[in-house]
């Protein structure tokens, strides 16, 4: 039996950690959670997860976007798919990205909170199975 797929979550809201665990772990995913960008990046380098779930607004309103750009510029990590989850819509996220001088949000999927459990599970399945 193969190891469960590893999903790394970076979100400053501890309740979101519980929610993602409740939704994904029954589907066979291994979920690890980090509340800050620096600790999340450290885990990314150390564990090289199969997928990253990333919030936009962490310690600063654009920290998640900066992390996404940083990861997608890195040869080692750019293959890791990212699902951006945030309370701001994609349009606002892209506007933040443009303010930072980036064109768009460099992620595989963008999901707006509140998350519907079934939709989240489907999105993770789809992205990890290459359909995203």
């Amino acid at each position, binding site marked *: 039996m193969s190891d469960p797929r590893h999903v790394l979550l970076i979100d*400053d*809201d*501890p*309740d*979101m950690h*519980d*929610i993602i665990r*409740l*939704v994904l772990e*029954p589907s066979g995913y291994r979920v690890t959670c980090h*509340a*800050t*960008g*620096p*600790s999340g990046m450290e885990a990314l380098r150390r564990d090289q997860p199969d997928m990253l779930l990333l919030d936009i*607004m*962490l*310690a*600063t*309103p654009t920290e998640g976007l900066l992390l996404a750009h940083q990861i997608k510029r890195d040869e080692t990590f750019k293959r890791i798919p990212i699902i951006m989850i*945030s*309370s*701001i819509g994609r349009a*606002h996220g892209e506007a*933040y990205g443009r303010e930072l001088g980036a064109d768009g949000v460099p992620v595989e999927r963008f999901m707006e*909170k*509140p*998350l*519907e*459990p*079934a939709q989240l599970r489907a999105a993770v399945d789809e992205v990890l199975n290459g359909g995203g």
Partner: protein
Amino acid sequence: MVLEDGTHISLSLQEPTEAYRTRALISLLRLHWFVRLRWVFVVAACGVLALERFVTPSVTRPWQLAVVIGGVALLNLVWMVTTRGLRARLAADEAAEAGPIGSAQLFANAQVACDLALLTLILRYTGGVENPMMMFYVFHIAIGALLLRKRQALLQCAWAIVLYASVAVGEMSGRLTPHYGFLPALPSPGWHDDAYYVVVAVGVMICGVLGVCYFTLEIAARLDKRDRQLLEANAALRRSTTAIQDLQMRRSRFMQNAAHQLKAPLAVIQTLASLIRDGIVPPEATRPTMEKIIQRCRDGIVQVTELLTLARVQEADPRRHRVASTSIAEVVTELCRRFKPIADGKNVTLNWVVPEGQECRAHVDPRDASDCIGNLIDNALKYTPGPGSVTVKVAAVASPHRQRRLMPGAPERELEDGFVYVTVKDTGFGLETGALADHGAEGGGSLFDAFRRGNNAVAAGIPGTGLGLSIVREVVEQAGGRIIVYSRPGRGSTFTVMFPTGRDPLAPLCVRDTRASEIITEHAEPGPDAVRSETSSEHTSC
């Protein structure tokens, strides 16, 4: 400043009153004005002599006149080379302070002095006191008074008078012989021998030179004054522009972030409810999940309350601070008494020190002062794990000694009079150096921006809305105060807010200083490699 050949010159004017003169001097260098004018004179003089030679071939001018005109041309070459050298120095020296400016002034003095001497020699060989070209002294003195300092201009006047009087008296007394006529083709009127005429001519010259010097100095002084006013108006406009840009950026960010922050708890509540509805939450976890939902509702209410506080502070008339006279000592005492049970509950010692017998009154609205200082104490207690301590001090005197006690270990600084200082010092987490490095100076965001929270606070799971320091900044900026933050990660922070005292309530409102916060962070082990991250600390004075 950009010269006509594209060279950039950057000037740092130390004395605003000298600004006009200094700029005039630089203009002189920029345009080669003196040099070009002198070339015109040399060409005109040669032309006139050639024409005279052509019209009246029998009449000859003394050979010394040609030597003097040649001297003017030769000296002008020297000035030209010196001007280029000075321009190169000004362009190369970005700081361009005393050195090049001092040299330029010396250079201008030398030119005026030499021109006066050469003019006197020309007069000597073209009629002396009989030559009406003595009015050219006035011309040189006017230029000197515009370009030079008052004392230097008066010395040039004295130099011109001595030169002219020497020629006049020398010719009259027969010490300077022979006398050369103004128009050699005509017989000399002999006025140079007439003591009465010589005295009148010298007297007229002295009056003319001194009068022009006085009036030109007066005009220059008025130009200096106007220039100073313009510089001040420009500075005020720059501050206004900065304030407007900063406030616009804050407002834009605030709306986006507020929408996110208000939506976030609702989104979590909805998702948690969906999980319960869909049976994803195990039965034994249902109650804790319901508790989380209730807690998120409470958090949302706290957030809205703080947003309302921020909105109240932002929207209220800023003049309320001017007319208010709040005893900061009383505010601090009341707040500390209120926070004491919370501190005791966390095993944190809360101390407060207020000057004995002093109210430490400042121009800040009492409710806003309470919100501002209350947020600082609340933050300090929140981010200080027990056992620890939080100390609140109030001070009205800003001596260096006092400053060391207010911010122990912080870089030495001179604090200003006219403020009441409130310092909240804790032994908590401190601020992260890295978190501030990406922001601050570029105005892209700062510790005081709404909804900004430190990574260490988030990692430690400490609840917070990220609005407290925004309220602090809003109150301090509106009241015309300042904020200084000194922090060592892992060893605590010291927040100092300054509220103004003794300002005239009827005076016009100052331009809001949106860069009145200064943040200093150091690594836990201060030493030569200590990192400092500072935002601009431009101070607005009224």
